[in-house]
């Protein structure tokens, strides 16, 4: 059982290398990586035995990147291909698998060896359940999002660097323009405290109740899907189709707790729910629940936070 690792995101590639190295050491097998235009020896110090390089890849485009990964797979002949499940990676992995005519398990949350077989875990049914999956094809393509695994402490190791000479296809999808997104979008996923708004808020102006608390706690503000997609009060939402967050504290205010939303906050350390409906499902999945009207509770909470010792 051998591995090939690729992600267009270097940090993520190193995290995948860390896991591949751990599994390969258990099985006494090898780890190869495809480096995307950066120092190949760094991939060696992060756990790769062999590093393939390709020149002329340029900025991400799924067709040439797909072709490069397929060629690296043919050269390395791995039994398992680990890829990064960024959005770009999630469209790349199935394309690579399709070119090879093999199985793919996309956007997994974990991997184990069970009786010598690779078994992954993935969210299914809108994020409410976890499926265990395994594949019989060789190779099998498996992708993981950022921060599933930790990268290794870099060590002095020896490894082989192989340059692949490829005739990369001209991309048929032309990028006309790339518009930077507002910075706040990125902040939510790395925030350590998030206060979030649900449909319990009756008007956009009322979000200031939350803004005050966010300011005191130095927290980011999130919201549920309807607040963003339907009402347009905020840019991005937390949930299975929005941002998956993992703060140390998540305070859900006027949030009902749909399975799609809950799937996005599952990794929070402490969840607090404030909702006037005592049967709201958010109360059932929180550490601390307060049944009350957010229009009364939030001002009281602001005051209590200001007065805390």
């Amino acid at each position, binding site marked *: 059982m051998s591995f090939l690792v690729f992600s267009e995101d270097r940090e993520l590639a190193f995290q995948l290398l860390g896991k591949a190295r751990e599994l390969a050491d258990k099985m006494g097998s090898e780890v190869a990586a495809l480096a995307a235009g950066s120092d190949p020896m760094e991939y060696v110090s992060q756990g790769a035995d062999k590093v393939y390089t390709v020149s002329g890849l340029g900025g991400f485009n799924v067709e040439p990147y797909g072709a490069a990964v397929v060629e690296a797979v043919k050269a390395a002949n791995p039994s398992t291909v680990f890829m990064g499940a960024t959005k770009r990676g999630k*469209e790349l992995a199935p394309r690579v698998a*399709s070119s090879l005519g093999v199985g793919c398990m996309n956007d997994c949350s974990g991997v184990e060896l069970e009786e010598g077989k690779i078994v992954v875990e993935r969210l*299914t049914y809108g994020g409410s359940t976890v499926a265990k999956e395994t594949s019989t094809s060789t190779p099998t393509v498996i992708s993981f999002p950022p921060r599933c695994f930790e990268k290794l402490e870099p060590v002095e190791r020896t490894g082989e660097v192989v340059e692949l000479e490829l005739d990369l296809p001209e991309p048929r999808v032309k990028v006309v323009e790339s518009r*930077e997104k507002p910075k706040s979008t990125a902040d939510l996923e790395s925030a350590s405290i998030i206060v979030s708004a649900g449909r319990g808020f009756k008007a956009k102006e009322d979000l200031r109740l939350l803004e005050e608390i966010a300011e005191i706690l130095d927290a980011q503000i999130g919201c549920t899907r309807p607040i963003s997609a339907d009402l347009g009060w905020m840019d991005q939402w937390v949930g299975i189709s929005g941002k998956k967050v993992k703060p140390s504290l998540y305070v859900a205010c006027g949030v009902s707790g749909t399975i799609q939303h809950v799937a996005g906050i599952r990794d929070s350390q402490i969840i607090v729910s404030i909702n006037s409906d005592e049967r709201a499902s958010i109360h059932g999945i929180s550490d601390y629940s307060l*049944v009350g009207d957010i229009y009364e509770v939030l001002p009281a909470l602001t005051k209590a936070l200001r007065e805390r010792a």
Partner: protein
Amino acid sequence: MRQIVLLKDIPDLTEIKLDSQTRAPIIEGVKRRISEVDKRALEAAIRLKEKVGGEVVALSLGDDKTKTALLEALAMGADAVYIVNEPELKGLDTNATSKVLEAAVKHAGDYDLIIAGEMTLDSLSSQIGPRLAQLLDIPQITYVKELNVADGKVRAVRDLEDVDEVVEAALPAVVSVVREINEPRIPNLMSIMRAKRKPQTVWGAGDIGLDASEVKSQSYVQITSVSAPKVERKQIRIEGESVEEAASKLVEALMQEGVI
């Protein structure tokens, strides 16, 4: 312009309950609906048709229940529905499913655009769009939140993590859309009545030139178990004589947790 929209009918996620012993989802008997993001793919196709004309057909790999679930697609404005219903082709993985859809697309006639949701909400695999683009050897445009067609080209805005990417490609192409692209219409009674008179064609594997056992042998990924993770939360209810008292207790608890 002729558009093929890929639809999947899945169990209504809001109706799924858990088995109290195994924590496995109970799918049996749950009403099936078109997966939410797929519905937005259909809405996007209908809006394009309203602008530039042509035809919108829906295509699905399903079973005996799919016909009923896909009536909604016809009511929304699809002109026809094609369903691949083959008992031997149940529970296929994405590799095999994409091969069935490839054969069905080729059998469904000419097309300019194939539109799908970025993922179906049951399996969340995000694979069918990219796989189909690869198999049909046409451009692959994923995560689309704005879609336009003009002068034989598709122009789209892709919703990526760091950027909104404006892209262009020649037709035909495969497009997968994100939820944000639109709000799907709710069909009125007249459209619902009319939907029942629109054509629904059902194909077996042989009708689209496939050998079912050959396809099945290319289904590699198996699901060995599905269950809801146990939520290990403290579930402490904060109460007080007044709102102020409850708020203070909450702050106290959070300070003890060391999170504020």
